[in-house]
């Protein structure tokens, strides 16, 4: 509870990604891998079993030149809230190895409890979960440089983006030592947010009106759970996963690419 702000709202960390700014450079992917000790494989040619907590998709409007347009869509874990905190992946895990935190709104993964049934992978429509098909391989010398705050995962379990949760813990430890119970916006940022050279990613507490993410999507004014900002959308919103990652784009085809629009359906945020 964020009592110090006089609110009863719990924190709800989320991300806003401006797709009109993203250049698809992949810095976020690299930063995420390095920060979170994401292992390499000897052979990375099969992308369907490479681990990329943050993955950049390339979307196209499918039109020929000169109307051709592309968009890069970074996809971390959406930290879905689902129905009453029942994210698709959390509710199905038989061993309670993945959990939704009411304190932060983050979906965590307990590596030592996961036994690798992959039911959570089946449940996640965003393919945000990754299985360790192989033993982790670290190039010579790299063993020394692993991020000490993040545990290394073993073969046979599932892992995913944690919104760099260890950074939250570190920031909270510091705040507690200083006698605070609350964090400033800048104190907890994910590595991909920091690494993005064009500032396309914004991270913060969606429930906190002082945070930029809140202002970008203005959820307070939202009707029926949809963001007010006309250019904001969430991936597969209609499935009821209630993601905490918002995307911004002024391009209508991009917003349409975010959900399965049926023929003749109006786009969220479109001017009527």
């Amino acid at each position, binding site marked *: 509870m964020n009592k110090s702000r006089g609110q009863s709202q719990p924190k709800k960390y989320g991300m806003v990604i401006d797709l009109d700014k993203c250049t698809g450079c992949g810095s976020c992917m690299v930063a995420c891998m390095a920060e979170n000790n994401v292992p390499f494989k000897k052979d990375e040619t099969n992308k369907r079993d490479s681990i990329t907590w943050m993955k950049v998709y390339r979307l196209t409007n499918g039109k020929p030149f000169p109307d051709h347009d592309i968009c890069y869509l970074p996809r971390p874990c959406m930290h879905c809230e689902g129905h009453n905190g029942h994210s*698709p992946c959390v509710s*199905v895990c038989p061993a309670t190895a993945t959990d939704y935190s009411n304190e932060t709104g983050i979906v965590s993964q307990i590596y030592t409890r996961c036994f690798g*049934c992959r039911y959570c992978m*089946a449940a996640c429509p965003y393919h945000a979960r990754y299985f360790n*098909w192989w033993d982790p391989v670290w190039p010579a010398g790299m063993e020394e440089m692993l991020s000490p705050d993040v545990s290394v995962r073993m073969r046979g379990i599932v892992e995913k983006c944690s919104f760099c949760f260890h950074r939250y813990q570190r920031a909270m430890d510091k705040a507690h030592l200083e006698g605070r119970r609350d964090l400033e916006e800048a104190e907890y940022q994910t590595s991909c947010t920091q690494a993005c050279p064009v500032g396309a990613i914004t991270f913060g507490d969606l429930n906190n009106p002082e945070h930029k993410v809140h202002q970008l999507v203005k959820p307070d004014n939202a009707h029926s759970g949809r963001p007010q900002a006309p250019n904001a959308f969430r991936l*597969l919103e209609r499935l009821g996963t209630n993601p905490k990652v918002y995307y911004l784009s002024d391009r209508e085809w991009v917003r349409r690419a975010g959900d399965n629009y049926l023929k003749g359906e109006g786009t969220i945020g479109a001017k009527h």
Partner: protein
Amino acid sequence: MDSALIPQGVKRCSLGKFALFIGIVGAVLLWGVYAMLLCWLKGLNQTNMNDYYGFALWIWADLAVIALGGGAFFTGFLRYIVGKDELKNIINYAVLIGFICYSSALLILAIDIGQPLRGWFIFWHANVHSMLTEVAFCLSCYFAVLSIEYLPLVLENRQLNKVPFFHNLAHNMHEVMAVFAATGAFLSFFHQGSLGGVSGVLFGRPFGFREGAFIWPWTFFLFTWSAAAYGPCFTLMLTRLIEKVTGKRLVGDKCVDLLAKISGWMILTYIIAKIADTLYWAWVTAPEAGFTLMDFYSNNPVYGIWILVLEIVIGGIVPALILVTRKGRKSSFLLVTAVICGVIGVSVNRWVMVLQVMAMPVMPFDTWAMYYPSWQEVATTILPVAYGVILVALSYRYLPVFPQEKELNS
């Protein structure tokens, strides 16, 4: 040489011939065991699964054998609870098939998980919201029940039965079998249902997701119903098969007819419910998620609309119509056709609910995830079949599985 072990009054092939048969099937079994060890020792990188396609061929086999093994609980329920006495002539065989199917299912699950040594976490850290938790608990308990049901049959082996303790134990177990049959039916209701719930609750996967009652999606009820409907088809199909192989009549017409008739009515009612479910899904559930029915069956090389026709028409309506008519059941050809169609129907249903669910793209910019199993997956999927053949062969040779055999072949 082993004649002292063979039930009295029945004929079996020579031990040499039998050993040769077991040897051949045993080689297949060893091939599967080798693949299984590879998965355990080297990991699931031995399979062709990937992060887009996390359920292997063997998970389909798992669901299919559980559905087909449903003949055990349903026949037990009819025999002991409803009181269909005629079914006593096939109950042993149904229990044997159930025992094989369920032990296979547990073995497959043990191969499927990435950390087999942590398999017990499912019980220890159980998440009561997860369908898989319910599956694991009920499956293990029901396997224990099936073992208890199979045990008296083993104790009735000619030599074992000479030991007074075993003789009395088998006798007493028969006396209380109704309790186990009831427990089995109860457990089966839940685990068959929760297996249906496994994909039915995936609200992120509109191909599998179903609305439902309380915490249960419609697939929960459909799976239980279909297992009860099609399980007996599998028992009958295997009965015919073993009769063909041995060249003997093993189960009387009256018993076959009764089971076929009940199965037919169950399939008929099931398929009506399944059609209603499909229509609701196509008209309400799918459009709410932004899909039309044909989105699920186009733009890919395998999953055409034919698969729905195969499941509902060939695997549902056809066997139902054959089995509910006296004429259909009387004709050996039609009966065999119906039970084969039924087995295909329920297997296709389990296939789509496991593999097509995974293949179907959900994000608009994604494509179908096509997958073909590695030889290790195929071998481990065949492993339970080889194990089943061996167990049936051994049980048939040494245990009184078919009480009518003597009278039908004299």
